């Protein structure tokens, strides 16, 4: 049977037709395309801002099989209130340090409070973001090592003053990246460079720093025992935990292990007049990326609902614009619609025709929107993403590869498709219902 809708000749015909309308009314067509492109661009910015927080990219290449716990929530038995903060070492180790299911668990400094002063002999001191980590940190994240190797567990345990530094720090200190073994001064303590890694984007906030040192060498490092836990404050500290699962299907098992650890710990804490609230931790990357407060319940469903409403509104604006453009274009084409129908075009084919023509318009707009996104992301990524990641000295750089993620591209296409349906289905349906005789005479009813 002849497949009108997808025949090669019809596809060519739609494109030719769109080109003709474009030439007939270039101003209206350009305004329509640019308006739609900007709307798609805006939506894509929202999606991209979300995506860079969630999609895996180096060195956080394992985001999809990582779980995070960056806060300990404690409540007192008298229900006077709740406290939340990063983990003290004792609590962290007891709750997460003994997990059997994951591939590895890493502890790291939850935040970079203030930049450290770094210098080498002969260089001018400057500020750099410094993060204390354990040795497993370099197993969870795939840093691009340009020279040397990361510190290991024995370095960590022996509190060896070694540092992994970023390429830009290495160049600023030594004008070279082959600097393994060279001494640096970090906040008045001497460290030796053990490795140089490619710069890390602030868009990978867990892995991000410019210098990574064993937190066992930091002044506030203290090995705790249960006797040190006297109150809520003493159970907290500066550490966060990242868990690398072997596969995502291990997440429930890992959470179960964590839950048991919380139960055990809470049993021990009975005499201390407070208990720990797990609040479904550890969290996945996508949950962590959007969760606003550490000690408040948060629903992903309502978050996505809010985001969906926002995108829908953004989508409706160009849809209404395109719809009225389509309607006015069809009003001018009413005679053509009548002629086509007289010569054998069915209502359904007519609707399909109009939707396809409109789809090509929206597709062009979508591609322009996507190109705008890439240009913006590439040339203006610093300002583009700065707002969300302001506190660091590094750049929120993101590679084109991440922005050109097929998922994002499919999103654009999906938006184009929805936009097209919103904007063209009603005018197309109305046009198809026009009486043929009236339509040939140019009467639109």
């Amino acid at each position, binding site marked *: 049977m002849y497949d009108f809708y997808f025949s090669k000749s019809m596809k060519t015909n739609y494109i030719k037709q769109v080109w003709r309308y474009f030439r007939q009314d270039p101003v209206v067509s350009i305004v329509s395309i640019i308006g739609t492109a900007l709307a798609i661009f805006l939506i894509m910015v929202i999606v991209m801002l979300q995506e860079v927080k969630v999609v895996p990219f180096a060195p956080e290449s394992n985001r999809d099989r990582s779980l995070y716990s960056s806060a300990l929530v404690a409540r007192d038995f008298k229900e006077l209130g709740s406290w939340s903060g990063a983990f003290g070492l004792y609590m962290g180790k007891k709750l997460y340090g003994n997990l059997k299911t994951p591939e590895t668990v890493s502890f790291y400094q939850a935040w970079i409070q203030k930049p450290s002063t770094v210098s080498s002999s002969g260089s001018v001191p400057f500020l750099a973001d410094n993060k204390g980590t354990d040795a497993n940190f370099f197993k969870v994240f795939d840093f691009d090592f340009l020279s040397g190797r990361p510190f290991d567990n024995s370095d960590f345990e022996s509190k060896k003053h070694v540092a992994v530094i970023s390429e830009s720090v290495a160049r600023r200190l030594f004008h070279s990246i082959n600097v393994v073994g060279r001494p640096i001064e970090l906040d008045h303590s001497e460290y030796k460079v053990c490795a140089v890694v490619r710069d890390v984007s602030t868009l990978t906030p867990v892995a991000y720093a410019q210098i990574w040192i064993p937190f066992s060498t930091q002044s506030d490092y203290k090995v705790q025992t249960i006797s040190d836990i006297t109150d809520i404050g003493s159970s907290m500290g500066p550490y966060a935990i990242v868990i690398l699962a072997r596969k995502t299907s291990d997440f429930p098992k890992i959470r179960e292990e964590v839950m048991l650890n919380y139960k055990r710990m809470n049993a021990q804490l009975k005499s201390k007049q407070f208990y720990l609230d797990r609040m479904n931790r550890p969290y996945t990357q996508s949950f962590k990326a959007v969760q606003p407060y550490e000690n408040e319940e948060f629903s992903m469903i309502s978050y996505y609902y809010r985001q969906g409403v926002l995108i829908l509104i953004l989508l409706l604006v160009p849809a209404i614009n395109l719809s009225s453009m389509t309607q006015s274009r069809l009003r001018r084409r009413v005679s053509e619609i009548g*002629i086509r129908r007289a010569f*054998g075009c069915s209502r359904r084919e007519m609707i399909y025709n109009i939707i396809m023509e409109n789809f090509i318009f929206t597709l062009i707009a979508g591609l322009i929107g996507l190109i705008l996104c890439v240009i913006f992301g590439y040339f203006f990524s610093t300002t583009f993403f700065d707002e969300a990641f302001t506190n660091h000295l590094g750049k929120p750089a993101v590679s084109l590869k991440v922005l050109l993620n097929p998922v994002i591209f499919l999103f654009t296409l999906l938006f184009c498709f929805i936009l097209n349906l919103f904007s063209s289905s009603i005018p197309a349906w109305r046009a198809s219902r026009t009486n043929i005789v009236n339509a040939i005479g140019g009467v639109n009813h």
Partner: protein
Amino acid sequence: MISLQGVGKVYRTKEIETQALENVNINVEKGEFLSVMGPSGCGKSTLLNIIGMLDLPTSGTVLIDDIQTAGMKDRQLAAFRNKMIGFIFQSFHLIQSLNVIDNVEVPLLYRDVSAKERHQLAKDVIEKVGLSHRIHHFPSELSGGQCQRVAIARAIIGNPEIILADEPTGNLDSKMGGEIMEILHKLNKEEGRTIIMVTHNEEQAKQTTRTIRFFDGRQIV
């Protein structure tokens, strides 16, 4: 080929009811060249629209090639129209945004014909109406006679059995009108196409096989 039995058409608006056709009974044989005459507003064009399935009768039955057209679904009607009927209008009704060849190709867009074949067929019929030198011109660049030739080419490209021509020379001077009539007679005589033509021109009507006349929606001869 075409049989109309008791066909009536009433146009209704909120205020007024107009009887455009009343109890029309016509039989047209295959290969006939029928002319329809009558004063303006007597229902000639309505008759043509009903035969061409562009409009539905309020009463009566229409048989084309022994097939009952009433009750056909939109898709069937469209396919039937595409296969059986070619229209020629007084005001040509070409698509202004398409050039000559693209206008002529329109009926074949709704058939399983490759672009290459479509293009060749269009060239052939354009040659037949003597417009080969104008295939890439747009309607706005053509004279009235040339536009009507394009319309004829469009009407015959799908090889329909029936051609319905609504005052095809009405907007043309006598010379161009004569040329168009010549083409229509050729199509009728040489290719055996059945033609129904609405006209006000007695001379042209005389040249056809048979003439029927209308007055106030009624067939009087």
